[in-house]
């Protein structure tokens, strides 16, 4: 089934310009992404055993994707025998409907959520609010962007584009409406403290908790959440109904596989040994002593299973660690919102068009990658991100999604340059015509696809004598000598 992803109505050029113009964001993202990347290298250097675990973890995850059908059955039946309810949702729409009907069945009014990219992907908040529910994000970053009416700019650090001053201002406004004392400074601890106070009240009122899931263990029916704030512990224990919404690709077969992978998101994403909190959900209160009265797991496909048995299958191993975003030069310049959907950085470039069959983000492979391969080096799950970006560009050529002028340029240029005669002929013409485009001995303008270059850069003119022409004049004899 083809997936549905949110889509920003603004075209790429506007989104890109908004990103480039936002200097605060570029500075903040630049700092955060570099700090995470340095941290990542350090933790792996300090703990070489983790590298072995990572490798085995990749194997385990690839295996799980290969056996996904049977693992899904096993996981669902385990969840049921643990007293929970497992539901399958083929599309974003079905997933939202499933959560809405759970909320209706249990007469839910207030929902608290822990951080989940999948719920962003299916736009769950919007769906629940349309049904008259109040939805509150409890992850600090998510809470910030919810207050600001924005979407996440980074899959792991949703508010990475905001600095502390901006966050303080948001909270000051929020404090007025909530009748609370505003934060006294923009220190990180003060801001966190404010959000905690603010959220404590909501936790006690909430009827339903919604979480995502970092891993689902098929042999035990357990859902595992890794967070940095402990808010997931409250979301999973205080409200009377708990709903876990997770992608079908999050499963691993065995507990052992989980132990290989559990440190990977934090180590690779933010350079920490283990995220501060690991929350396990294994069933409702009836079966595990404390917690909610009812537990539902909604397993969402939304375009994922289509990728199985294709060259893109490894994409389903993604653990959403964000390491590829942190090293991506384009991401650092334009920020997450420029990608126009939920997933940004290299994994967003690959997944957005793949999940939606080019319905959303068809431009991304062409516009958001310089082919530097930094993401491939960074990805702990060994996903062939640059290879996939090239494949998606090839797919765009096949589907005629590029500008006709670009395609024509490549068509003729490659045919002319595929013979030495054509190559030399083209250079003779270039020499003849380039006078029109020169200033002080340098090229300053050009027609066709090269136009973009000259918006900001000069170029030396085509040499009066190319290297090969020089070689033929001075050294040509050498080659002939050897051949005869």
């Amino acid at each position: 089934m083809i997936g549905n992803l949110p889509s920003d109505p603004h075209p790429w050029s506007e989104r890109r310009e908004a990103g480039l113009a936002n200097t605060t964001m570029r500075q903040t993202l630049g700092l955060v992404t570099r700090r995470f990347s340095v941290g990542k290298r350090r933790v792996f250097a300090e703990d070489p055993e983790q590298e072995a675990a990572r490798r085995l973890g990749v194997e385990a995850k690839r295996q799980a994707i290969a056996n996904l059908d049977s693992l899904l059955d096993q996981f669902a039946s385990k969840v049921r025998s643990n007293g929970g309810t497992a539901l399958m949702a083929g599309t974003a729409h079905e997933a939202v409907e499933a959560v809405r009907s759970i909320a209706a069945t249990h007469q839910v009014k207030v929902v608290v959520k822990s951080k989940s990219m999948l719920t962003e992907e299916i736009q769950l908040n919007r769906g629940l609010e349309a049904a008259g529910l109040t939805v509150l994000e409890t992850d600090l970053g998510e809470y910030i962007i919810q207050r600001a009416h924005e979407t996440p700019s980074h899959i792991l650090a949703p508010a990475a584009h905001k600095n502390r001053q901006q966050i303080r201002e948001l909270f000051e406004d929020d404090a007025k409406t909530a009748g609370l004392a505003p934060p006294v400074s923009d220190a990180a601890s003060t801001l966190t403290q404010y959000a905690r106070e603010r959220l404590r009240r909501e936790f006690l009122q909430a009827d339903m908790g919604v979480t995502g899931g970092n891993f689902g263990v098929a042999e035990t029916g357990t859902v595992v959440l890794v967070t940095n704030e402990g808010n997931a512990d409250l979301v999973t224990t205080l409200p009377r109904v708990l709903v876990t919404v997770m992608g079908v690709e999050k499963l691993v077969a065995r507990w052992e596989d989980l132990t290989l992978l559990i440190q990977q998101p934090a180590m690779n994403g933010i350079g920490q040994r283990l995220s501060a909190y690991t929350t396990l959900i294994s069933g409702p209160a009836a079966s595990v002593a404390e917690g909610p009265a009812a537990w539902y797991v909604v397993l969402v496909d939304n375009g994922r299973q289509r990728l199985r048995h294709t060259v893109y299958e490894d994409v389903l191993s993604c653990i959403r660690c964000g390491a590829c975003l942190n090293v991506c030069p384009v991401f650092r310049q334009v920020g997450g919102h420029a990608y126009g959907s939920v997933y940004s950085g290299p994994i967003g470039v690959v997944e957005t068009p793949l999940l939606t069959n080019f319905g959303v983000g068809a431009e991304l492979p062409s516009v958001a990658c310089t082919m530097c391969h930094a993401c491939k080096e960074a990805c702990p799950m060994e996903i062939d991100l640059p290879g996939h970006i090239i494949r998606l560009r090839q797919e765009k050529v096949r589907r005629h999604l590029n500008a006709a002028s670009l395609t024509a340029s490549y068509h003729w240029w490659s045919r002319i340059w595929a013979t030495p005669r054509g190559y030399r002929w083209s250079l003779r013409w270039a020499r003849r015509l380039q006078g029109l485009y020169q200033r002080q001995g340098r090229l300053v303008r050009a027609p066709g696809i090269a136009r973009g270059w000259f918006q900001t850069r000069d170029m030396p003119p085509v040499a009066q004598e190319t290297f090969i022409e020089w070689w033929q004049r001075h050294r040509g004899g050498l080659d002939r000598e050897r051949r005869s």
Partner: protein
Amino acid sequence: MATVRLFVTCLVDVFRPEVGRAAVTVLERHGDRVECPVEQTCCGQFAFNAGYRQEAALLAKHFVEVFEGDTTPIVALSGSCAAMVVHHYPELLREAVIEERGSVKEAEGWAARAMAVGREVVEFSQWLGQGSPDSALGTVGRQRLALHQGCHMRRILEETRQPKELLEQQGFEVVELEDSDQCCGFGGTYSMTEWRVSTALADAKLKAFQDAQAGGAAYLVSSDLGCLLHLAGRLRRLGAQDPTRHVAEVLAGEEDRP
């Protein structure tokens, strides 16, 4: 004395032929006998990176035909173009031929030919660095140089020692740029189609070079002319001198051109 074949690359051939001449000088001082197959044109990386597989394959086939049937080392004047031939050609040709002709046998044939050619390809500084460390190139390096290691040399060829060691052996002092592992934004025709992002990245790289210059770096040196043309072009447009030099130029002692 080894014989080598020069893989000039189209950018050197057309826009900075002096780099090719410098490379010949250095290789000959190194004791190599230099040949240059004059039918070579372009490796097709521009087309490949942009997703134009059939177009890239046309150029790749031509390259293979020019260089095959001979086991003389092929010395490439660009890390990125070397990576293209060594690491992308076999799969590119396999897939393009299957797509075009539907014949697995033909596709495998082309892939094998590409692989055979790829085995002989080595980047210029890697070639020079293979010999004994004190092999005399006759270079008397005095300056401090800032190095820009192109992304494909760094991550596809996985070359991190050269050209740094080679330059240091010749007496140069080599400094790393701040954020040296971040792309300069060139990216082939990405620099044209997405010139806004490409230029923002060039400016970040040039800012790092400015800091290196303040610390005494005389030139910005790289094994990849693509990156250098992009950075030099940006500086020229901003009214500055061109401080970029290809590794071959500094090794030849020809860095002091205007």
